[in-house]
């Protein structure tokens, strides 16, 4: 048994996958820390003169109207009178041009440049916080989408301005309870062009005429939806834009002198009407400013900027309306709106350009200092450069202010340059995809999938190879990685870990490919010499068999948002199809029904078992559909009633019913496990594993049932016992955790479940099959005992064989024989037990109703194992087995897809709002201090089915041996004594085949999961401009990648457990043989 080699190869594979995922995600997911501080009027910015900066002067405007027209591209707003044949989207908003030419001091039109990702939610975040939102804003609250960062709406509220909102209901979820009055309309249906707009128009004018508001926000969605549905070049767009034109006219007519109108688009659209990416068509929106009183000191001049970044709106609006600039804003004020120095006190009022810039620069500097103390993702050298620049500017400004001389225009432009460079650096850090990294990650993942496939096909050869396994690739990888680091240091002055890792991974992979090429020539020439074309065709046909077609379909389905949304049902459909394929395929090969019934009666029975298990499997899959949760995209879908915890149920009778159901399924779960172990005679000895199975597992289940009972009791029903209940809520789950840990440790330390009974009789060989005197304490009939628990004569037989070879000459007779109970399932019993303990432990983290789902999971796994074993037996009975312990693709594919199936059937979904946060508080009802423990609990809860299926994966290899039909294979392996069931002891006879089969199984399992990760990575990379990328594909990618991480880690643990058992068995034999030879 070359355990270390198997493990190291698998570890290497996993590491390659991780590096690939890390590289891609590093380029794709933009991560930023949220600063949870807010600006207030009283803040004193450094270096200051002691007085508050933000609310010091008289605000320029009292009120503001913010009209956001979703996807109002700059091309829509421009008016070109010379264009005689305008397209449907051109020249449809003439009001802007008319206003600009007739009232140049009151209005301006700018190109409003958004930062990618150009999706509505991120944009709303952008122009209210003044920051550059990324996909993952690491804050302290994942569960809701509410904006916790300091933002304009919050500042308005704090300074007593009444904010009235109407339109897109995204705002309502981003700013819950922040509005004075709110009229949200559903934004979900992209096909609906009018509901939101008409809803706004019903209320907009009456609200404007009233006096119950200071800031009015109206978000129109029609243009965006029209773009998504018809594209910009369509008559419907012309109608919509004309409607908007009349809206703007009416709003301008109703404005008062102290009010500022801000009309803007949040992003643009491509020629097909989509958005989300970073092309100029998507980022360039409209910004139109207007007030009935003159706001611009001069008409439009050449020096004014043409393009305004979206972040700049925040400080400008804040200073114009006299509220503090939000803490994390990195925008710079829009200078033309402020008077040049020296005119401060004139009719215009408000701050001068230099003062506004100075406040702005101080605020940005404060944010930069806070952020760099929290996170390290801004390059340090550029940070220090910025700080130097700021201190230089501040001393210059203070000098100017002290001498109260006229400031040079040089200072203004220097401050502007400082603000621009801050924003550029932030943008480079947060808001840009890194296509090189993404491509490298893709290539690496693709090649690892190939390596994985090769490894699964060539595992026997890899095991046979004499040269030392992975030392060379490891050394090469380290060397190349170090070289890459050194090169980076020399050329750029700092080291980026991702590239060093990538270099190492690539080099070790190339080495592996080279070795495989050198390894395979004999295999290739055998087929290839005859007809290379034919062999290639054969390979292709082998890849198109249903077991590989199904994962292919699954991967293809990850590229479509509708299929990702319906993933739970799609995956059940695919798994079901593949499961039905197994007996059909057997029948096609003529193996399901024996041609003549008499010689092999067992075969008929075997197919009966197979069909019965198929029924159980399909039934549990069908039932599992009723445990699904609902995504918000699935319109009329009701989440499963079992998903909500019992404590939320009002009806006490229903509560009792659910509780009893859950407890019964938990009981059945534990009983089935125990029964299985008992059936194969693994509960007779007195080791750690047996102790766990006998005592800890039932105790754990009891703990769990009590915990459910306690947590479901309503708070006010038992006043007197409230202390006790609180204690129980704390103690029971913690006790369960401890029991779980203890049980797992015991299994690990003492995994043997073999009961040895020395028989002092000098029985000869012929008397061996006689009924043993000893009866296992499990209370089953002697016949069953004879058939299954079998006094394992194997050992005696083996010893006689060994002795025959090694020492020779010793008579086989007159030696004490040994019976070992449960030796036939010595490998699978600990794995099964480990699995069961984990299952009960993970159930603890789920809502009570999920016990039913876990029971279904157990049934499905068991049925699948039996089907697999039966089909192996049936093929074996007809001499059609392939030899070795190879596990075919079909069961592995079902196994790994079932992990995703039960991910959905335990109420999880690949979206962030659907994460079951309650899991973090099991056993810790008062919350946590750190972040590690809650993160661990939540991820254990989320990936429970991945964990269970990965840890149970070795069972696929072991189960056919456990269920082997006596006399079928025995004839080959054991010569004349073939009638004895040797079950898993066969693995010890062929350690080489065992390890290669184990490697193959794990590599295949990793391959199926890896290919799914690869395809969701592809989906994210290809569809990064898709409307749904941040809503569907990116979360799917995260869940798929994390699921892979968890699965592979747990798979390694499972394999290690098998190897650990193997070691223990070897030691046991070593101890036994001298013992017996005495």
């Amino acid at each position, binding site marked *: 048994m070359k355990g270390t080699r198997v493990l190291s190869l698998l570890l290497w594979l996993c590491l390659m996958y991780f590096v690939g995922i890390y590289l891609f995600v590093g380029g794709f997911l933009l991560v930023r820390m949220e600063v949870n501080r807010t600006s207030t009027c009283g803040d004193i910015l450094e270096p200051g003169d002691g007085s508050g900066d933000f609310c010091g002067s008289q605000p320029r405007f009292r009120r503001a109207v913010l009209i956001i027209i979703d996807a109002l591209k700059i091309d829509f707003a421009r008016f070109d009178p010379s264009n005689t044949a305008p397209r449907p989207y051109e020249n449809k908003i003439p009001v802007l041009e008319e206003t600009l030419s007739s009232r140049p001091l009151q209005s301006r039109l700018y190109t409003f440049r958004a930062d990618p990702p150009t999706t509505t939610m991120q944009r709303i975040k952008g122009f209210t916080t003044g920051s550059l939102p990324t996909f993952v804003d690491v804050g302290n609250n994942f569960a809701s989408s509410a904006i916790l960062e300091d933002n304009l709406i919050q500042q308005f509220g704090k300074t007593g301005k009444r904010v009235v909102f109407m339109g897109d209901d995204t705002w309502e979820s981003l700013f819950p309870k922040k509005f004075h009055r709110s009229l949200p309309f559903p934004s979900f249906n992209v*096909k609906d062009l009018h509901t939101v707009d008409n809803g706004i128009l019903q209320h907009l004018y009456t609200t404007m005429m009233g006096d119950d508001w200071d800031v009015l926000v109206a978000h129109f969605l029609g243009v965006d939806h029209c773009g998504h549905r018809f594209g910009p070049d369509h008559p419907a767009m012309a109608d919509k834009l004309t409607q908007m034109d009349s809206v703007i006219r009416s709003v301008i007519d109703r404005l008062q002198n102290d009010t500022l109108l801000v009309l803007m688009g949040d992003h643009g659209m491509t020629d097909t009407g989509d958005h989300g990416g970073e092309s100029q068509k998507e980022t360039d929106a409209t910004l139109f400013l207007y007030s009935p009183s003159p706001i611009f000191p001069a008409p439009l001049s050449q020096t004014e900027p043409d393009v305004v970044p979206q972040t700049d709106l925040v400080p400008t609006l804040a200073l114009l309306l006299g509220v503090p600039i939000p803490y994390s804003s990195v925008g710079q004020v829009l200078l033309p709106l402020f008077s040049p120095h020296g005119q401060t006190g004139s009719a215009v009022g408000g701050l001068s350009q230099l003062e506004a810039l100075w406040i702005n620069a101080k605020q940005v500097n404060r944010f930069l200092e806070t952020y760099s103390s929290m996170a390290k993702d801004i390059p340090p050298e550029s940070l220090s450069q910025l700080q130097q620049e700021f201190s230089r500017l501040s001393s210059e400004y203070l000098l100017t202010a002290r001498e109260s001389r006229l400031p040079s225009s040089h200072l203004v432009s220097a401050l502007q340059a400082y603000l621009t460079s801050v924003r550029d650096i932030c943008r480079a850090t947060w808001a840009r995809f890194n296509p090189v990294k993404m491509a490298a990650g893709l290539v690496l993942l693709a090649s690892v999938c190939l390596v994985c496939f090769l490894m699964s096909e060539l595992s026997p050869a890899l095991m046979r190879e004499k040269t030392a396994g992975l030392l060379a690739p490891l050394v090469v990888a380290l060397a190349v990685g170090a070289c890459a680091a050194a090169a980076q240091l020399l050329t750029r002055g700092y080291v980026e870990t991702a590239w060093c890792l990538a270099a190492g991974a690539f080099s070790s992979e190339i080495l592996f490919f080279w070795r495989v090429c050198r390894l395979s020539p004999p295999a290739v020439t055998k087929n290839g010499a005859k007809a290379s074309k034919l062999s290639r065709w054969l390979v292709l046909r082998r890849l198109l068999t249903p077991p590989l077609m199904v994962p292919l379909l699954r991967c293809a389905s990850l590229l*479509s948002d*509708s*299929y990702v*949304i*319906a993933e739970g*049902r*799609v995956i*059940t*459909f695919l798994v*079901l*199809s593949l499961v039905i394929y197994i007996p*059909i395929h057997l*029948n*096609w*090969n*003529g193996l*399901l*029904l024996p041609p003549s019934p008499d010689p092999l009666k067992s075969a008929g029975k075997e197919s009966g078992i197979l069909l019965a298990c198929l029924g159980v499997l*399909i039934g549990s*899959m*069908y039932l599992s*559909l009723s445990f699904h949760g609902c995504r918000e995209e*699935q319109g009329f*879908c009701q989440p499963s009633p079992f998903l909500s915890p019992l404590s939320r149920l009002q009806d006490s009778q229903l509560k009792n019913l659910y509780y009893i159901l859950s407890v019964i399924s938990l009981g059945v779960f534990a009983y089935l496990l125990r029964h299985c172990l008992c059936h194969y005679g693994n509960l007779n000895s007195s080791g750690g594993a047996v102790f766990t199975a006998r005592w800890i597992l039932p105790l754990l289940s009891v703990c769990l049932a009590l915990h459910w009972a306690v947590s479901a009791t309503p708070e006010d029903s038992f006043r007197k016992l409230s202390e006790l209940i609180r204690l129980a809520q704390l103690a029971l789950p913690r006790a369960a955790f401890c029991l779980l840990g203890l049980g797992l440790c015991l299994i690990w330390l003492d995994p043997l479940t073999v009961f040895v009974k020395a028989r002092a009789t000098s029985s000869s060989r012929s008397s061996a099959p006689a009924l043993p005197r000893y009866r296992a304490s499990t209370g089953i009939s002697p016949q069953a005992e004879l058939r299954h628990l079998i006094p394992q004569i194997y050992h005696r037989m083996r010893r006689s064989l060994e002795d025959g070879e090694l020492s020779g000459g010793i008579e086989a007779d007159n030696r004490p024989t040994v019976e070992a109970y449960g030796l036939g399932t010595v490998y699978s019993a600990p794995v099964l037990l480990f699995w069961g303990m984990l299952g009960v432990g993970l159930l603890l983290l789920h809502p009570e109703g999920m016990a039913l789902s876990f029971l279904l999971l157990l049934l499905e796994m068991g049925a699948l194992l039996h089907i697999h074993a039966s089909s192996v037996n049936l093929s074996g009975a007809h001499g059609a087995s392939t030899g070795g312990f190879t596990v075919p693709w079909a069961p592995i594919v079902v196994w790994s897809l079932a992990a995703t199936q039960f991910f959905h059937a335990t109420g999880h979904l690949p979206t962030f709002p659907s994460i079951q946060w309650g899991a973090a508080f099991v056993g810790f009802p008062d919350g946590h201090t750190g972040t590690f423990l809650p993160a661990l609990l939540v991820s254990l809860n989320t990936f429970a089915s991945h964990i269970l299926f990965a840890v149970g994966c070795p069972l696929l290899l072991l189960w056919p041996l456990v269920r082997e039909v006596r006399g079928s294979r025995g004839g080959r392996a054991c010569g004349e004594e073939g009638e004895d069931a040797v079950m898993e002891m066969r693995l010890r006879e062929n350690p080489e085949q065992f390890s290669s089969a184990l490697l193959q199984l794990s590599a295949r399992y990793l391959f199926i999961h890896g290919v799914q990760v690869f395809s969701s990575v592809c989906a994210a990379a290809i569809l990064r401009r898709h409307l749904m990328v941040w809503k569907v594909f990116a979360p799917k990618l995260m869940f798929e990648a994390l699921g892979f991480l968890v699965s592979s880690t747990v798979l390694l643990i499972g394999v290690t457990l098998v190897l650990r058992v193997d070691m223990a068995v070897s030691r046991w034999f070593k101890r036994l043989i001298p013992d017996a030879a005495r």
Partner: protein
Amino acid sequence: MWDHEIKAMASTHAIITASVFMATVIPAVFVPGFSVYGTHLLWVYAVSGTVTCVSVAIFWLLGISPPTKKHTLGYKLSRLSRSCLYFFLSCLFFYTVVVLYGAPLIESALETFSLSVLLTSLTTLRCLCVLGPNVQTWIRVFSRHGAMSVWDTCLQITVACTLIGAWVGAFPIPLDWDRPWQVSSSHRKPTYSDWNQWTFELLFSFHHLQPV
């Protein structure tokens, strides 16, 4: 002999295909408001009824069915009744399978049941006609070396293609194209996958016949 059989089979399939075509066209002429998508249930009934009648008639006329051992009326009657029973059971079986594949259990039972009748008339009925009411034989025929005659091979191909076609017919359902034939994402197995079935079926069977 061989040639003759292939000819007979080709003409049989041509007739059945024509009958499906007629079952689509003739109601469109005579029944007001008939369309394949609009009144899909009616269409499905028409198709399955026609296919049932035509195939029973043809196979009976050609005398493909295995020769009966006894020629008594009672035996023939029992065979007939058993065939009817099998037909009904197969409808139930397909209903169960379709429900297990995700169709709603009761909500649109009529649609699901019509699909199962259609599938039965395309698969089980043919088995009944060619092999007689004997499940053991059916199972034997659907194995690699089970096909004894060209009719058996043909049966294998048409049945497999019908089922695959129906399976593929479920694929467009989750897509959000908002077409009338995409009932809703909760109805996984609709009744309109027959086009797929027939194209598949015909394509495959003719493709396969040429080398023979």
